[in-house]
Every structure is written in structure tokens, then in C-alpha cells.
């Protein structure tokens, strides 16, 4: 119960970002909009669940609506958009809370979970405006937010708080579209690639329907609005009139200050969407970090790892206990069919974090350097420190003293040196 209360409270507090552009509108209207949105969201989430497609479509529309509002200076439009979008924002934030509280209520068989989440919501909203309100009033909100900025800012806030996986969904949709389009275009030109007959442009075909290109398009589409809006703001010419000297300089300084205020919203949108894209990229390309398992010691001289454990080309980690120390080894089947066996540390980075496996490479978790799989077993730079081994029938055989020698040499390194 405490958990759901804290989640509701935290979400309501995060909602201060949604209230930020609303400092210029009437407080009562703002509270009405926010509370209506939040309560409707909670109820619809609890009884109907979350409609992800509709949520993404609306968040998408709010975000890209900013492109159509460039140049619109009406304060009435700005205030209306702030009020409506803030209500929408709270609706979506609390729709997920409503769905979560229903699942929690069913799991814990406690029907009062819903009311706990409502309590968290009210306390959060109640705390937000008084605390943040004073800070907001100190900011030149009227100069920071225009109709365009409100739409862009709130769209980015919604993406950041509640629709971070929108980038994943978008990337998946773009990839499907590109796959379908490329296949149909190549088929219409009667040059579809073949499985084993070399055909023209087969490399281009694979590139165009790959996930790299779709990720590039996702990034371009998502980052286009803040960049374009910022460019449009800076395209406005500096004021020129007949004033001279100090008066002219004063007018110019006001103009430039206003530009800086206007830039806040696109820069915030750019950064928050960038974080969302990064989260999507990590989700699409997660690092596989296996839990090390104790290595089987045959005798005090050698230890063996069955080669069959590596056939799936997934990274494996093993622990050897040397006195009070743990030596972690990694083993992986390389694409060229050979085994890569090394310590789970490199010559440069501090030991402890080890390596994870990405697509076609290992990654040093400390410095995030990708290491090609075919280079595992070769000593250099950020590569894991190789360990000598032999293949005996169906086993990888490692001499204990060789392992300890390599480990001691690694520990003696002042990181940055060489064995």
C-alpha cells in the first residue's frame, strides 16, 4: 500500500513539469483541469486499463502540434493550450497509476488500494503548486512559453514521464514500414534478392530494411520539432530602428534575452526526447550480462569447461576462488568458430564491472567500449586479458597456475600499463 501511495505521490510531484507553463492562467481553472484529468485518468485506468495506441497518438499529436503553432503569438491560445494539455497530461499519468493500482489490488486482495492512490494524487498535487508556484512566479513564464513552446514542452514532458517507450514503438513501426516498402519496391523492379544466388543491390536491400536505418529515422523524426523550432526562433531578424548608442544596445540586449528565454523549451524538449531515444536504444540492444557460475575444478592442476556450453555463441562467465579472492573468467564462441577465453577485466579500466554482450560484440561496462567478438583472446587496450587454454576433445582445459599468474599480473598493473 505504501508503494502505491509513494508512486502516486511521485507521479503527482513530477506533474509539476506539466504545471510549469500554466503559471499565467487562473489557479482555479488550472486546478480544475488538472484534478479532472487526474481523476478521470485514475478511474479509466482502473476500470478500462491503458490504451497505449491512443496514448501514443495523443502525445505524438501534442508534440508535433507545436510545428503548426509557430508564429502564433496569442496569449489566449497559449493559456488554452496550457490548460487543456495539462489536463491531458495528468489524465495519462494517472491512467497508468489507475491500471497499476487495479493490478496491485487484485494481487494483494485489497480493495482500498485505489483510494490510497487517490490520496497520493491529492497530496502530490496539493504540495506541488504551493511549493513550485513561488518558484514559477519568479520565472518570466510569459517570455519562456509561447503557444509553440507550450505544445513542444508539454509533449516532451509527456514523452519523458509516461511515454518513454514511444521511441521503441516508433522504431518498430518504421522498421516494419521500411521492410514492407523496400520489399515491394524491389519486387516491383523485379530485382528481389535471392537466398543464395548473388543479385544486384542485395547489400542495399539488407541495409534499407535493417534496424540501424529505422533507428536513424526515429531519431530524425523525434528530434526534428525542437531543432526546427529553435532554428525558426533564431531566424527572426534583430530589431532595427533609428535608435543609436546605449538605447540601441539596450533594445538588442532585451531582444537577445527574450531569445534565450524562448530557447529553454526547445532545448528541454531536445534533451528529454534524447533520453527517451537512449532508453529505447538500450531496450532494443540490451547488454547480456550472465551471472558467473563456479567453475568445475578437476584437480588442483587444471579446470575444464565443456565446449557444448558455448555453442549458442552466448557469453558465459565463471568464478574461480583463489583464497579469499574471486577470479572471474569469461568464455565465448567467436564467429570464426574459435573459443575466446579471458579474465573479466581489461588492462585499462578498474576491475569490477566486467563485460556484457551486445550484438556481435562484447562491451566493457565501465567505459562502454565495444570489443569485436573475433578479437577476444588477443591482448590489447580494452580487450579482456586473455588466458592460455587448450581444447581437449569436448573441453576447454585451463591450467590453474597459468590462471593465477595472469590474475596476479593483472592486479599488479597500474591501470593503463601492460602485462
Amino acid at each position, binding site marked *: 500500500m505504501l508503494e502505491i501511495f509513494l508512486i502516486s505521490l511521485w507521479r503527482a510531484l513530477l506533474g509539476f513539469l506539466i504545471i510549469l507553463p500554466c503559471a499565467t492562467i487562473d489557479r482555479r481553472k488550472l486546478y480544475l483541469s488538472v484534478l479532472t484529468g487526474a481523476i478521470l485518468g485514475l478511474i479509466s485506468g482502473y476500470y478500462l486499463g491503458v490504451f497505449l495506441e491512443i496514448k501514443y497518438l495523443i502525445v505524438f499529436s501534442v508534440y508535433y502540434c507545436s510545428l503548426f503553432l509557430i508564429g502564433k503569438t496569442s496569449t489566449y491560445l497559449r493559456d488554452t493550450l496550457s490548460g487543456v494539455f495539462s489536463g491531458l497530461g495528468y489524465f495519462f499519468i494517472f491512467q497508468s497509476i489507475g491500471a497499476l493500482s487495479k493490478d496491485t489490488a487484485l494481487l494483494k486482495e485489497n480493495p482500498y488500494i485505489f483510494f490510497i492512490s487517490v490520496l497520493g494524487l491529492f497530496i502530490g498535487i496539493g504540495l506541488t503548486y504551493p511549493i513550485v508556484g513561488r518558484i514559477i512566479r519568479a520565472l518570466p513564464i510569459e517570455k519562456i512559453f509561447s503557444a509553440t513552446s507550450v505544445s513542444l514542452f508539454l509533449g516532451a514532458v509527456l514523452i519523458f514521464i509516461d511515454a518513454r517507450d514511444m521511441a521503441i514503438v516508433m522504431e518498430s*513501426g518504421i522498421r516494419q*514500414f521500411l521492410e514492407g516498402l523496400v520489399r*515491394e519496391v524491389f519486387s516491383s523492379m523485379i530485382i528481389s534478392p*535471392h537466398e*543464395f*544466388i548473388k543479385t544486384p543491390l542485395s547489400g542495399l536491400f539488407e541495409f534499407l530494411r535493417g534496424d540501424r536505418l529505422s533507428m536513424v529515422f526515429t531519431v530524425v523524426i523525434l528530434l526534428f520539432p525542437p531543432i526546427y523550432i529553435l532554428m525558426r526562433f533564431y531566424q527572426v531578424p534583430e530589431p532595427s530602428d533609428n535608435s543609436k548608442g546605449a538605447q540601441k544596445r539596450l533594445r538588442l540586449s532585451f531582444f537577445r534575452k527574450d531569445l534565450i528565454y524562448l530557447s529553454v523549451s526547445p532545448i528541454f524538449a531536445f534533451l528529454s526526447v534524447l533520453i527517451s531515444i537512449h532508453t529505447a536504444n538500450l531496450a532494443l540492444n540490451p547488454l547480456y550480462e550472465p551471472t558467473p557460475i563456479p567453475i568445475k575444478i578437476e584437480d588442483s592442476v587444471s579446470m575444464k569447461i565443456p565446449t557444448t556450453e*558455448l555453442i549458442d555463441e552466448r557469453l558465459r562467465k565463471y568464478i574461480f576462488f583463489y583464497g579469499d579472492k574471486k577470479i572471474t573468467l569469461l568464455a565465448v564462441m567467436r564467429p*570464426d568458430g574459435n573459443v575466446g577465453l579471458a579474465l573479466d577485466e581489461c588492462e585499462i579500466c578498474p576491475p569490477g564491472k566486467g563485460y556484457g554482450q551486445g550484438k556481435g560484440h562484447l562491451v566493457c561496462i565501465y567505459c562502454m567500449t565495444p570489443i569485436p567478438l573475433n578479437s577476444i583472446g588477443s591482448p590489447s587496450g580494452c580487450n579482456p586479458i586473455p588466458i592460455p587454454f587448450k*581444447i581437449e576433445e569436448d573441453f576447454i582445459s585451463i591450467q590453474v597456475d597459468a590462471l593465477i599468474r595472469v590474475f596476479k599480473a593483472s592486479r599488479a598493473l597500474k591501470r593503463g600499463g601492460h602485462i
Partner: protein
Amino acid sequence: MKKPTLILGIILILLYMFAGGDNKILYILKSPFGIVVYLLFSVSIFLGIFKGRFGIYRLPSISLRVGVALFMIAFLISVHIRDTKEVLAIEGRKSILYGKEIFFKKIDVDVPDEFFEVGEASFTLKKAILEAEIDGKNLYIDPVVPLRDGLSYYRVVGVGLLGNLPYGNDYIESPLEVFPPGRRSEVRLPGGERLTINLLPEKEFKKGLLSGKLYNLKKITYYAVFKGEDGRIIKEGKLEGDRRFFLNLLVVKDPAILFIYEGIFLIIFGIIIYPLRFLSPKP
């Protein structure tokens, strides 16, 4: 971009998002509303060339717009009127397609005499040429570029082995899709039985983690499993085969293909000369 083009583009995107079926693009191009929006979008892109004065600096924009419009309209026509047939080409045989007699004179395939499959090594053919006589004309058809003959286009799209399968007291000739080596081909026999067949490697190697198979493609040996209608295995074992190939020949009749190619060419040309726009003198 003009507003109508933008609005039509947004409608197309929404149509795509909510389209059903496996192939959303074809779904849009075959639905009446989708066709109307698609055509209007193409026309609005084309009409954009009349905005502003013509000049060399507008060449990239004109080329791109004309290319996109031409491609889109030709693609739509192609989707609706294209007729595609796939024919089995066996050396020395004849076939009649679209009223034309095709005589398959010779098949030239660079299948090696032996193939050693190791790790990620892949089976790739660079040559699969069909020499055919169509209405008295001698044509060389390959898998690289489709060959045009009037409104028909020909292209080799597959290679396999022709197997003589024992059936009762006789033999049945059947195309076997057994490439790349290791692939299983399933053949339905006249009595309803099924035959699963694949190339049998001559030797298998294993050294440590590495394993490889050597296929003799000069002296073909298959491994065949005969199954009854109910899936029960009747017989299985080795089967000797001949090094006789067949090709899958794709024949496409479509008057719009030429315009598809022209549209693509104009788009690529427009992209290449696009930097020309930045050289235009500022007003």
C-alpha cells in the same frame, strides 16, 4: 511543403497505421479510399513543380518531384495490372506462356563439384544463366537484371536439382529444392504419399568446436524419407541422383515497370544534383 500535400501525407500515414493484413502497403493500394488519397498525394507532389520560376537551380526539386510522382503512379498501376508467372525451366523442354513458345535450350549454373560447409560459410552462386528461344529469338536470361521482351520481363529466381524418384515400378521426375545443401525438400507423390529429401554429405568433420560437412555435388547422393498419407514412415535411405539442374523462371507482364525504373532514376538523379540548389543566387 504545401499544406494539401502535408495533410494528404498525414492521412496516408494514418491509413498505414490503421491498415489491416500482413502487407499494409498493398492493403492501402487496393482499398478505394486509399487509392484516392494516394493519387491525390502523388498529383499534389507533381503540381509543386509549377510553384516558382523554372531554372537550372530548380532542376533537383523538379527531378525529385517528377520522379516521386511518376514512381508512385506507376507503382499503383503495377500493383493492379501486373501478371506474374513462375515457370520451371528444364533443359531441352518447351513451355507456352502468354501465347509464346519458349524453348529452354541450355542451363548454365556454376554449382561447384564439391561444397564444404563450415561454421558460417554460405553457399553462393554467381552464375545461373538460361539460354532460351522465344518466338525465334535467342535470349540469355540471368538472375541479375530482368530481361525485357516487349511487355514481358524474364528473370531467373531459383536453382535446384532435377531428381528421378523411384515410385512403384517407375520413376517420377521432380524438381528438388535442395540448395543450399542441407535443406530439405518435400515432394507430394501421385498416391498422396510424401517424400522428404535432402543432399547427403559425403563426409562430416569435427575438430573441437568446429564441425563441417563435405557435399559431393558431382556425384549426387540424397537421403530420402518416404512417408504415407498419415505421416507414417514407409521407407528411408540413400538415393543416387544426377547432376541435372532446373531453374525457376519468373515471367512478368507489366507495362508500368519501365515507368517505375524511370521514376527511380529521376529520384536518384535529383538527390545527386541536390547541392545545386544551394548555389542559387540569393535575391
